[in-house]
């Protein structure tokens, strides 16, 4: 592949993929970022800026941010804005684009993310998801809101995709923030090397930690990976003393069994009574974004859980002496 992707090198080892983010020319650490969300008030305390990194080693069926999964930049299309003029088809040298009544379709095998269609489209239907940025580039955006962080007890949250999937970048960015006194949140599903995590924790004020399932086999069915590493990393975080909030996506029919919730609460409470647990009710709002990336959403028929089921799960977790909240 060519284009912005060329800055990235994929290295594999020990079954834990990671992206080595050294910039090729300047020696600067680069990250693939797909969004910086300002006035973010759902990703930790206070007013925050959330940096969304692109690329995730897991492949959860219910993922509501499909644009975050692929570690490489890709082009999405906002069909509601499309006039079906076809200019994108004309400029595409890879012949990857077709346009019909529904809007744009991109053949992802053919698309080389050259970006010509994006430039050609006057209506901003096409959008590049993921940009390669240096730590300083990202930081200069983040520090524009420093006074808001201070006045609200907020800060910066780094999430994904998977923040541990770009460990050098995550480390450098959080370090940069903490050096100037900005509170940092790491939002992670824990699938990264323990050594990287350990380094990152030095500059992390608070961790949001996803746990999807306690059973290793089912975990692999749901996410493509086993959970051994994730559970070991959780222990590591708890030992480090950095406060942690466990986030459990609550997906009906997938991980909502009483056994799983109990096992989860038992395991967590065995590690720490201090850890808080948040239940994140399943929602389908990511569905639109699958279409924007020409992907199929497998759980299209799955409905959100009932309030009753959620409060039952909450009670179970609380019965293990853990504080638990259901997110809205």
């Amino acid at each position, binding site marked *: 592949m060519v284009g912005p992707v060329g800055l990235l090198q994929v290295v594999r080892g020990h079954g834990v993929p990671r992206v080595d983010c050294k910039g090729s020319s300047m020696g600067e650490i680069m990250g693939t970022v797909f*969004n910086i*969300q*300002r*006035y*973010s*008030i*759902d*990703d930790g*305390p*206070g*007013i925050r800026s959330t940096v969304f990194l692109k690329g995730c080693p897991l492949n959860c069926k219910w993922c*509501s*941010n499909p644009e975050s999964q692929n570690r490489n930049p890709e082009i999405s299309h*906002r069909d*509601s*804005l499309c006039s079906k003029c076809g200019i994108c088809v004309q400029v595409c040298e890879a012949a990857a684009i077709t346009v019909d009544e529904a809007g744009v379709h991109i053949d992802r095998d053919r698309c080389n993310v050259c970006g010509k269609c994006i430039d050609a489209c*006057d*209506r*901003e239907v096409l959008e590049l998801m993921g940009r390669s940025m240096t730590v300083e580039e990202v930081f200069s955006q983040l520090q*524009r*809101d420093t*006074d*808001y962080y201070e*006045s*609200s*007890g*907020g800060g910066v949250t780094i*999430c994904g995709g998977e923040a541990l999937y770009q460990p050098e970048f995550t480390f450098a960015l959080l370090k940069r923030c903490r050096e100037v006194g900005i509170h940092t949140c790491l*939002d992670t599903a824990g699938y990264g090397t323990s050594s990287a995590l350990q380094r990152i924790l030095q500059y992390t004020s608070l961790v949001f930690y996803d746990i999807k399932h306690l059973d290793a086999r089912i975990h692999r069915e749901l996410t493509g990976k086993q959970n051994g590493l994730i559970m070991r990393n959780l222990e590591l975080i708890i030992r480090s003393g950095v406060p942690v909030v466990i*986030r459990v996506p609550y997906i009906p029919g997938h991980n909502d069994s009483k056994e799983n919730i109990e096992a989860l609460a038992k395991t967590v409470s065995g590690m720490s009574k201090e850890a808080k647990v*948040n239940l*994140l009710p399943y*929602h*389908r*709002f*990511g*569905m*639109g*974004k699958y*279409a*924007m990336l020409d992907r199929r959403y497998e759980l299209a028929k799955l409905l959100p859980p009932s309030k009753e089921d959620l409060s039952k799960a909450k009670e179970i977790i609380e019965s293990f002496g853990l504080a638990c909240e259901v*997110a*809205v």
Partner: protein
Amino acid sequence: MTITDSMLSKANAKEIKSVVVMTERLKKLKREWEDADPVVYVDDTLLFTKSWKETDGLPVDLRWAKAFAKRLEECPILLRDDELIVGSLTKFTRGNNVLVAMKPREVLEMAKTGRFDRKLSDISATYIDPEDLKLLIEDAEYWVQHMPTVNYVNEALKEELGEGHFDLMFDRGMVFEGRAVRVDPDRGLFQGWGAFGGGIAQPTMPVIHNGLNHVINLAKAEIDKMVDQGACLPGASAAALRKYYLLKATIVSCEAIIAYAHRYADLARDLALKERNPVRKQELEKIAEVCDWVPGNRPRNYWEAVQSLRFLHLACWKESSERPEVGIGRIDQILYPFYEEDLAQGRLTRQEAGELLGAFWLKIRETENLVTIKREHRAAPGTLLPDVTLCGIDENGRDLTNELSWLVLEVMRQIKLSEPAVYIRWHEGMDEDFMLHALECNRDFGGGNPAFLNDKLGTDRYLARGVKPEDATNWLASGCLGYHLECGEHMAGMFSINQAKIFELTLYNGFDPRTKKQLGLQTGDVTQFTSLEQFYEAFFQQEDYFAEILRKHYFIWWSSENMNSPMSGLRAAMLYEDCIPAGLTSREGGARYPVCRASWIGDRGITDVADDLAAIEHLVFRSNKFTMAELLDAMAANWEGHDDIRQMCLNAPKYGNDDDFVDEIFNRVSLTTQMILTGRPDPFTGEKPMLFKGAAAGHVTQGASVGALPNGRKAGTPLNDAGTSAMPGMDVEGPTALINSATKAPHAWETVGITHNMKFPKAMLTSTAKLENLAALVKIFFARGGWHIQFNIHDSDELLKAKENPEQYKNVLVRVGGYSAYFVDLPPELQDEIIARTLHEVY
């Protein structure tokens, strides 16, 4: 620095939040108001005309006061079942008052077409009784016949500035907008602006606290002094005579209000005699006792203070029928001594205090004004602007927030009426609980109420203009939205300068493509320009040219207005400490400080101009996407056949995204035009004019005259709305970015109003933690030098619109923990799901 002894105990805060404002009584009264049809009320105008005929030959100041007195002394009065606070502007539950003499031709036209526009609603039809209609037509015909045949303001303008000057005015080129810049303003008896020049009176604390009898006594003593000194003997100067008649007019006006209150006292006594229900009988007896005493005397208790405020507000409203922007003022300060004393003596409960305040609120809202200005020409449709101001720091650094500040918010939240609007003077040390209460009320109320003003900035601006600390700290919100000292008057709305139009003229070398006239200077053919610097230079030259014309216009307008229209005794009464010794109203120089009557210049379209310049720099000079000539062609065609160019223009960097490239352009345009406009002293006071970049709907009227612009805007569509608003839908980086863009430079310093509107989805305010974040946002806005911020809380309506018109709402975000997407990108069924969630949110 701030002494914060004002924090409310938790117990009292809790008690105030548990006050039931909407008692059965108020629910019933509100329901009656909601169910009532608006009706045109004619008695007031008929009484005015009757009086005017009777007083022919008397000095105009006295005629005006006598007409005012007749309107109060002979109008029908009524006391509704269950009312506690009394005094109605009309005899209808929803009456539309009109004063024909001020605009007879327009009223006649409305009366003959049967189409009555109200100021407070989008419904344009208002009922009128057929008999009343006949009387109204007669009245209008009388005034049309007896109107001066020429308009004295425009004659003076013609004499001094020539015929061509009219091409710049509201009805033609619209370089200037406002009620004082019309080619054909249809003035009646007084042609500048009703009878009131620029200012508008409102009840003041000294008048309520000391009573109108005190004012009358001072006026009488001043007359005695004049007589003793021989000032008004035959042969004395015209100025002394004018002073004498103003003092007399003051006495006539004050006595009329007292007499009006006494009529209510009599009525209440009569009703009490007939009343069978002992509880109501007692209430009526109480009302009689209250109305016997106020507003003539200092209130003896809270109830009387509220009633006094009602009578005085009504009086100011009545006098100023054509310009009803009568503020209510610092209600928590005005009423507090009485509230505190009553609570301490055990004479009043918080519940009773809340109900009385609610009753006052309902009385304010029952008034609607029939205005004859065409809907599309109105500065502020849908509002009468009875602004309430809360809190503030005094000259000793004391925080004046009190229990009533809390209670007023609770009343506003529960009674849910679009008016009065509430403005909080925010300061750094503001009690956090109070702030959360205010934001909670804002959330529950919906529209931008309460709004927040920067206490320190408001005071500092007056200190910098030489006002003493005790007066500089005593200011209040007025209009939509400016502010003024309590020892002065609201001045807004006379002249606006249309920056977007001036920029358009610059693009066409001073030529106006709409009127096909050379309105501006020839500052060069922009297709030959090679840098943005040349655009700046040309634009600022035009600006300078028009600023000088505006200043001349202002001088001519105000001097002919002062020569020809009456001074109001009521206005002198409200500022009696200064106006009575001076024998002048504020407008003529009777107010304490010159700044009290410095002109306000409306200044609109700066963010539009910044976006225009950014688009030109970005697309023409930097990336060479097209030439200036091609851009002008596309604009001339209103983009038809040039959709590609328009889209590029729309996608060019826009103000409001914390993008230094555009923001620096905005800063330069804003600060330079500010210097140009305030650089010329106001010819009456020698003061710098104050700039007004408020929230009124002038962006709609002014936009109507402006063709397509380089920012991608289409011809005739509204300009950006408030002082620091971004182009609709173009601020995609969120609230912190918009605030940063708006506050990088001191845009607020020379302004008397610069509004920063923000929209928030209700979902972002559903928990205390989220409200705390909003409070932090407000804090930073003010720390960065912002002046006025208000939050419009939107819910499902906004999303329904976004579903229909995705292009205009492409930045509406849906946020769930760990997830974010644009609403318009969701499939329809999920959009519906989000809308349903929004609808069913429970607080």
